[in-house]
């Protein structure tokens, strides 16, 4: 029974927490520094994009993607591909729907900036 209690406790507590503290997601986050990348130009573009897009999406992008790996250029996938990749990352990185949405919107806005240099890209539907 010790095992059952250990398993059941977080399962019970988490939904209660989720139900009683809805949408507290973005509070208390510190300013983000984009994770390291190989290209100085990409890093500069990303920093500019973070500033333009506002804190939430850019912050989450830096915090969640950089927690495991270097961040990829927003231009590395088109908008539809990012939609799929972000859904994969929502599973792998334990993102909430709100975080997934905020990061996807940030990537879209950042890639709009990069596309002026990189050329035309597939448009988000």
């Amino acid at each position, binding site marked *: 029974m010790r*095992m*059952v209690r*250990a*398993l*059941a406790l*977080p*399962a*019970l507590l*988490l*939904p*209660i*927490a*989720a*139900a009683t*503290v*809805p*949408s*507290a*997601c973005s*509070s*208390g986050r*510190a300013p983000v*520094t984009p*994770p*390291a*990348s*190989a290209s*100085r130009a*990409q890093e500069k573009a990303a920093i500019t994009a973070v500033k333009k897009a506002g804190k939430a999406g850019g*912050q989450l992008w830096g*915090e969640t993607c*950089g*927690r*495991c*790996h*270097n*961040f*990829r*250029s927003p231009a*590395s*996938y088109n908008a539809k*591909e990012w*939609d*799929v*990749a972000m*859904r*994969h990352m*929502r*599973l*792998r*990185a*334990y*993102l*909430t*729907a*709100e*975080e*997934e*949405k905020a990061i996807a919107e940030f990537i879209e806005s950042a890639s709009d900036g990069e596309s002026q240099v990189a050329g035309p890209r597939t448009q988000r*539907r």
Partner: protein
Amino acid sequence: MRPASVLLLATLLLSVGSLSLGQEQLSGPQPASGSERNEQAALGTTDFLITGWAFGGFESSQGKNSNFSSGVSPILLWKLGDRIFFESEVEISLESGETSVDLEYAHLAYFLNDHTTLGVGFFLTPFGSFRERLHPAWINKLPDMPLALDEESGIAPTSSLGLQARGAVQVGAVGINYALYVSNGPALKTEGEEAGRLDFGNFRDSNKGKAVGERLGLLLFPELEVGYSLLEGKVGAQKTEFRDLKAFLQAVDLNYVKTIAAVKGRLDVRVEWVWSRVDDATHGIIAFHNVSSGGYAQLAYRPSQAGAKAIRDLEAVVRYDALRLPKGAPVSTDQKRWAGGLGYWLGPSTILKAAYESLRTTDRATGETTTTRSFLLQAAIGF
């Protein structure tokens, strides 16, 4: 199914039910306008992506033939509307002169609400954080895996066949993530040199009991995550004298990643430790106190804010890892290894790695100790 499994499933379903009530549904389908429906119909609603990673490597160890290796792991992703998602990874590699093809995961997920996802199939086991998030060659800082977490020699589960519920919630400034699962579970090996060890590649359940497990992670602040995992289940084959033997595994993991201006770069700290206990058998080749442990601690530093590009793209890493197998087991060793490596990032997901390792192995039966030094090279890419 054992009472523990039934209770866990009931708890899991209750949790899911409560979560689905009273929550803002960001992920749920939204009514589409006429023009949106037309646009969706024109473009289709199923999105597909092939991504993945690949590597080529070289290893030279004392007392062994040096060897090249290579592998590719395509990841196939399908997004079928807003709620259904399928992910799969196939690992293709050259090992011992043969091509090995292994399914890493094939997982169908249903996004129930903003904070809970249900999954069925073959999924990366949410046990610790290395296996789920850090094992791809372009993410792993060194060319090889920690001894205790290696798919072949390790003591932790890699992939599981079953059901899971997972998700995340934010409570104030603290992020909480969780995963609960029921699976076929590992099987106890009872013959040969590996007798007493757990087989995590057990795709057919060897008994009527199901394994249950969970991982709970806390993001105390965005750069720091700590996690606790456990797995419990029957591991003995049903029609043998070992059928009542159970295994209980625990793990703790810590991940800290932060760019610090004072050191002009990014620090990446990873720690994961696993403890495994299998009930003692009363007779036979596995009649020993079956307790194993192992894990790793790793520090990486990348001077990402240095002036020269050639310096910015370097990353230094040092890792200590260990694996202690039970005394009395057919293979009863205590291994401790130090590794130092240097990586050079050609791109955000392309790296060249070189590492030097020193492995000290002590035979717990005789006390004899040997040291093996190795030199490893690897080129890895995430695509």
